[in-house]
């Protein structure tokens, strides 16, 4: 029996090795937002305001939408989809495209923040993760978790990365783990990005560098972080949740 198990393990490992050589594919994520958990996590607002919000809106359903990450050996591109499920009403999708040149380790992220369109043209910056010890399945793959404290947005982020798929891929700008990031959980469910399915293609997919309006600001990662940091500082003084103005 034990021998059989070992054979099975080796077989899995072999399959995994094959997977890691796949050149092109697409990860479909579901992004869910729990506004109550978001508000409750804002520690600079008064406790009674947060408690009342939770009391009033604790039964509200989560809001979710889809996003995709398309990759080949040279690049990957992550963006959100508006599938227009609400009858008769549509909101504008705010520009948010993460584009990474994997060959040259460069980012070309197009993000609208605070009324301006920013293009982050820089070398790729990864988070400094602390590796945790738990295992679970996401989109059919066994993942391990890691933790990162986002000191700018004051968020606790837990990532689940695939143990059998070692590639530098992740949703939004999350990167830097020894496996593809298949789930991101911010502040214990306030926002969750979970992979629902993974597709592989035999042919190399063409991944286009994002096009954008001419009127934009070309910035480095540090410059963009400063915009966010300054805005959150002001929101703190105003006792207003920062995510009314910028992405969570």
């Amino acid at each position, binding site marked *: 029996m034990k021998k059989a198990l070992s054979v099975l393990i080796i077989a899995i*490992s072999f399959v995994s090795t094959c997977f890691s050589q796949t050149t092109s594919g697409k990860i479909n994520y579901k992004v869910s937002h729990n506004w109550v958990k978001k508000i409750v996590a804002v520690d600079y607002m008064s406790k009674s305001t947060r408690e009342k919000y939770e009391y009033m809106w604790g039964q509200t359903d989560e809001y979710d939408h889809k996003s995709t990450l398309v990759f080949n050996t040279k690049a990957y591109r992550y963006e959100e989809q508006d599938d227009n499920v609400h*009858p*008769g009403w549509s909101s504008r999708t705010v520009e948010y495209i993460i584009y990474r040149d994997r060959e040259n380790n460069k980012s070309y992220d197009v993000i*609208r923040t605070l009324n301006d369109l920013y293009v982050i043209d820089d070398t790729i910056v990864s988070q400094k993760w602390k590796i945790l010890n738990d295992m679970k399945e996401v989109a059919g793959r*066994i993942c391990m978790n890691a933790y990162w404290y986002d000191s700018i947005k004051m968020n606790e982020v837990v990532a689940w990365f695939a143990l*059998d798929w070692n590639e530098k891929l992740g949703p939004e700008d999350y990167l830097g783990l020894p496996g593809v990031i298949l789930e991101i959980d911010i502040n214990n469910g306030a926002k969750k990005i979970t992979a629902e399915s993974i597709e592989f293609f035999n042919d190399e997919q063409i991944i286009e560098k994002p096009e954008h309006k001419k009127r934009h600001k070309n910035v480095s990662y540090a410059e963009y972080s400063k915009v966010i940091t300054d805005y959150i500082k002001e929101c703190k003084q105003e006792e207003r949740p920062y995510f*009314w103005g910028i992405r969570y």
Partner: protein
Amino acid sequence: MKLLNLALLLLLSLTVFSQQPRNINISARVVDTLGETVPVATVMLLNSSDSTLINYTTSDSNGEFGFKNIKNSGYILKISHVSYMPIQRDIPVINQADYNMGDIVVAPIAEILMEVVIKSAKAPLFIHGDTVEYDARLFKVPPGSTVEDLLRRLPGVEVDADGNITTMGKNINRVYVDGKTFFGDDPSSVTKNLDAEAISKVKVYDEKSEQERLTGIDDGSDEKVMNLELKDDFKKGHFGKASIAGGTEQRWAARGSFNRFNEISQLSFLGFANNMNNSGVNWDEYTEFKGSSAYSDFDNGDFGFGSGRGHRSLSMIGGNYSNKGFTKNYGGGVNYNYFNKKTKFNASYFYNQSDLTYDQFTKRQTFLNDTSYFRYDTTDNYQFNNSHTVSSRFEYEFDSANTAIIRVNARLSENSNTNNQFQIYQTNSSVDINSNTVYYSATNEAYSVNVLGLYNHKFKKKRRSFSFSAVADLSDNNSDNTLDNINEYFLTTNEVERIKLLYDNQGSQNNFKSSLMYVEPFGKRLSLMTFYNFSNKIQESAKLTKDVLANNSMIDSLSNYYIHSVLYNRLGASLNYAWEGLNISMGGAYQIIGLKGDYALTQRTELRIGLPQKDYMNFVPYFSANWELPNNMRIYGTYSYNINEPSMTQLQPVSSFSNSLYRIEGNTNLVPERSHSISAGAYYWDRASFTNVSLSFGANLNENSIVYNKSTEFVDSIGYVTVSKPENVEGGNSYYAYLWSNVPIIKTILSLNVSGNVRFSENPVYINSIKNITKTDSYGGRIGLDLNIGAKLNINIDGRVSTSNVKYSLQTNQNQVILNYSSEAGFKWQFAKKSYLEGNFTWSNYQSDRLDYVADIMLLNVSIRQLIGKNNRFEVRLAAFDLLNQKEYLYQVATENYTEYTSSPTLARYFMLSVSYNLKGFEESNNKRRRW
């Protein structure tokens, strides 16, 4: 000697130091418990102090891996693999450049855990050293199950008939709850008594024996124990507030609320009583009382565009602050909410009572085509109102595609009113014409019941949906009134006329309505909404008027029995475009309003036709557009064509008699009013600077509106007698523009807010059969500054002005200007950790050139409050209201063919001491802004 020792030590340490290379190479091989090599394992190098990931690699086909030329600073080596338990090894600072760790053995994860827990239950495995735990919440047990039932479901755990627990072939002899012993040592005492719903994690591990813990030597007698972790989010709690206040001028107030909640229900109580002109509850208190159901009471069952056909709102908010006279108020109620994944239920009861007493003085100038006259009114009024309101709502989600809502609301109310009015009429040269004294008293009882049923189905195809609603709206009222009217004429002869009447009025209204709606999407951007609305409103009114001075004989001209019906059918459709922030809706509906009225003198006499069945057919177009631009700007525009039928009171062929100088007649020839409404606007929000600008425009163009035309004649020996009659009049319009903006001057410290409005209107009315057009041009503006000095001091100042320029076509010499302006300054200062000083000063000025009226009112309020107790549970507040004792109710208006102002005394200077208690404690911060 000491020096020698020190030198030796230094030398030794240098030697040691020199033996530690700066950079090292690490290598090892990963094997399983059977000695087989483990390829493609993830090998991570972590910082030894905080587990931060420094570097990683994977093991090769021989299970071997290595890190080359890394800093010799000590690490944790972590190896993980999909099929093995993660393992950690410490790598200390080492003395040789190449460090081979040999074979590192990893243990496979039990197959049952892999298959059942991870793959089937999709539950994470929490791994601690060599033990695993799983998320108990993902192993569903029926409500009310015990922990024992839960354990039977967990893979790898067995529970026998006596409640003995075994796992991996070993008995579990101890069960802890959150790491603590619970009811002694018997495990089943816990597992049989504790509710499974309270548990979040189940963890099984080896507990070292007492001896091993003391000596550190493994005596091989480990014992398997189980720890049950309780859910930290098993939310339940309560909060509440109570306050009591007493002051000068015999003022007092009391208020209390208590809310209790858990994961599935909320129960709230609210009560208040005061004699401080504060009736009802405000929005904050209302939402706290209604809890999660506060925002769910807005369905009216009317689908399609445009306004609904009568939604009976039974909200308990309202009235809130009377600024006229003096009131005593009492109210209280209970609310209960229950919710789970499929069900939302709400039930509430509320009682409200208020007594209002006021005195009032009004000066009015009325002008006719060739003359004008004055009227001075002195009124004292007493009102009593009470109501019992019961409301309930039940929402059930059969599945994600089907939802039904049932709502039942009912209200029983009583009110009484006593009004004593003394009027003096004067010519425009201030000569007394007559006096008119009116004593009026009324009692009224009413009930209403509103039942709504609503069903919604979402089809498999996205955005395709069907909805159906049915509503029954029933109400009934009964009133008894008496009128005693004495008119004394002074001008030539002295004549006195007295009228004393007794009214008995009964009315009922039953409205049954239903709507259907179907939405069909075409592609991703377009959809077609089709709808049908039906309503049948039947109203019944019986008016009986008796002349008390003529042996209570019935007055036929003021008595009437009337049955009125309004049948409404509307069929419509609209095409909607919705994509990327651009939403356009265009449509139209064909509607028929059928009116019919039968009357008789009394309910027992023969019915006659008052209004033969008349159908009014119209095509009603509709348009709306809303566009969200990328830079946080939104622009919108709407157009609608509104058709409203006349009310029963207007159509009923009987007069309504207010006093011997004023009566309103009915008109059976009225047709529905028709008007066009257009509005457009833009809203801009600069997120970066917190700047808001909002601009809106609108126009209302009447094709035909129902206007109360007046005929006033001078009757010798009585005075000016006015008869008013509703009639259809063509024309009339209004245009408006409104601006509102908030601009930070110094971010987070000083902000400027500005608003302005203009309105131009033209309203036609016939006075003694001559058309008079009242043109009113109104302008208003406000400018304010908000200053925050640190978190402790907040100051605001603002100034407002409003003016109306009124022109009459009937008599241009009556044209006039009304002017009001006011300014206000306020502050909030947290002068000590728990102490606050607050104050505000308002100065208002009212002017009317026609009535020679100028008034200045200055109001000054100051209060100081202190939080007390460890958790700030108590608050004591001393407040002075209207220190200058000038508060008064004032109102000015110029319209139709008159202009008037009204003043009424109200609650002025008083001092008050209040004590409040908050179960959760009051906030300490000087909460300057609550709007976000």
